[in-house]
């Protein structure tokens, strides 16, 4: 009798345990897990991954006077993933003696985000540089991959004027920059394939990418093949770059939130599987 009662009780406990967690509690916990470290950072260590270090080393190894094409196509929606990496890499470039060609190919929002959010973050470094000599901005150019092909083939033909309407012939930086062969590095935002197709494969120009974190596994073959010289994928990689250039910013501040939210997802997966197995492997 006692055994039957205990057995029944045990069954009820297991049944209660395998009940699904109410999504509202999950959402509340996620909100706390993401929000708390933003208010009170934990300062967890941040190991530097190879693709991020590779881009850092590539920029460090650029000879003085090298010309870098920097594509800052950051949209408002992807700002949390792309914004900090754009700022960190630009800070690094501006600290070196290299020439920078700025352009937005991925989105028409690029120039607005550059003017309102990226430029204020790098203003102190831009002040030391001369527009037209050390850097030039071509704003948004439509056509995406076709525009890339046209720029790689003949920059002066594809980009006749900069964002302020100055003819390209009057820009000192562009005097000796005619085709992709004159570029030492292309650093882009978004997807890497078009840049590999239009800059690396035909002209051998090294390409690096600042992309979404979810793209990192998909881009590993390009890293392994040397078609990408470096990659800053997502907020974690941006935080690594901020550490490398010793300039902690938005990404470092978010890195603890990222850690805890990922850990929270893993814990939920484990709980979900325990419930699945304890609940007689019923499909939920």
């Amino acid at each position: 009798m006692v055994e039957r009662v205990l057995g029944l009780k045990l069954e009820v406990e297991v049944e209660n345990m395998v009940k699904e967690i109410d999504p509202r509690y999950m959402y509340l916990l996620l909100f706390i897990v993401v929000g708390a470290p933003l208010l009170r950072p934990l300062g967890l260590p941040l190991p530097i991954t190879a693709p991020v270090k590779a881009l850092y080393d590539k920029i460090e190894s650029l000879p003085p006077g090298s010309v870098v094409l920097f594509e800052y196509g950051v949209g408002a929606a992807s700002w949390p993933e792309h914004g900090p990496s754009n700022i960190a890499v630009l800070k690094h470039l501006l600290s070196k003696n290299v020439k920078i060609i700025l352009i937005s190919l991925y989105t028409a929002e690029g120039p607005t985000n550059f003017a309102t959010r990226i430029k204020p973050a790098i203003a102190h470094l831009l002040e030391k540089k001369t527009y037209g000599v050390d850097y030039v901005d071509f704003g948004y150019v439509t056509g995406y991959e076709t525009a890339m092909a046209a720029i790689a083939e003949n920059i002066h033909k594809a980009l006749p004027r900069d964002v302020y309407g100055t003819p390209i012939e009057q820009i000192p930086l562009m005097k000796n920059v005619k085709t992709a062969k004159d570029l030492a590095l292309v650093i882009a935002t978004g997807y890497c394939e078009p840049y590999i197709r239009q800059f690396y494969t035909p002209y051998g120009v090294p390409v690096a990418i600042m992309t979404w974190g979810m793209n990192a596994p998909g881009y590993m073959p390009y890293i392994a093949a040397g078609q990408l010289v470096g990659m800053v994928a997502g907020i974690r990689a941006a935080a690594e770059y901020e550490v490398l250039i010793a300039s902690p910013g938005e990404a470092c501040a978010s890195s603890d939130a990222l850690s805890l939210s990922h850990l929270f997802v893993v814990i939920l997966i484990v709980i979900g599987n325990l419930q699945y197995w304890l609940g007689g492997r019923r499909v939920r």
Partner: protein
Amino acid sequence: MSWLRRRELPLFLTAILGIMAFADYFFDIPVLHSAVSDLQVWIIILSAFAMFMGVINLTIVHGRVVMREKDVVRRALSAWTLFLMYLMAILGLLPPITGHPSYRWLYTTTIAALDPTVYSILAFFITSASYRAFRARNLETTIFLVAGIIVILYNAPIGGYIHPGIVTLGAWAMGVPITAGQRAIMVGAAIGALALAIRTFSGRESAWLKAGGGG
């Protein structure tokens, strides 16, 4: 002028121009380089014009709702959309070219705030979905689950803090099996794209000619 409406004309132009661009990528022919370079600049101009066509299209679609729709809420929403679109367009045209302060203010306080908010709501769905969907039902899903957890922890700085082996294992997973799998997918997709290009150039693939992309 009926020949202008025939589908053979765009198919013929696509085939010729496509083959020219294709050949230019692989062969060093100066005449072809020059012609394709011109074509590329044309496409940049056409793409810019396509954005203008988008504005006209939105005006027609929402204008029709404002004029004909009986539901007041729908009419109001369409009118509001049109008003905002033209407000942003007009402010965007005002000097300085890098952004009039009013345009920047509107962008920062609306789009820059709303876009990431909508995007970040995904985090809640992904969390809930990972709890419900990641089940070790059989050997394949167990491998998938273990690999997923390793990569999740590898991508989070806390992974290395929990155990240094996670970083090593994550780097190996990213560099070896994931790279191998991705290569297979990429090669497959590239062959598929090549087949699609050949079909398009030869006129066998004409679904893109139909309005709305159907077919």
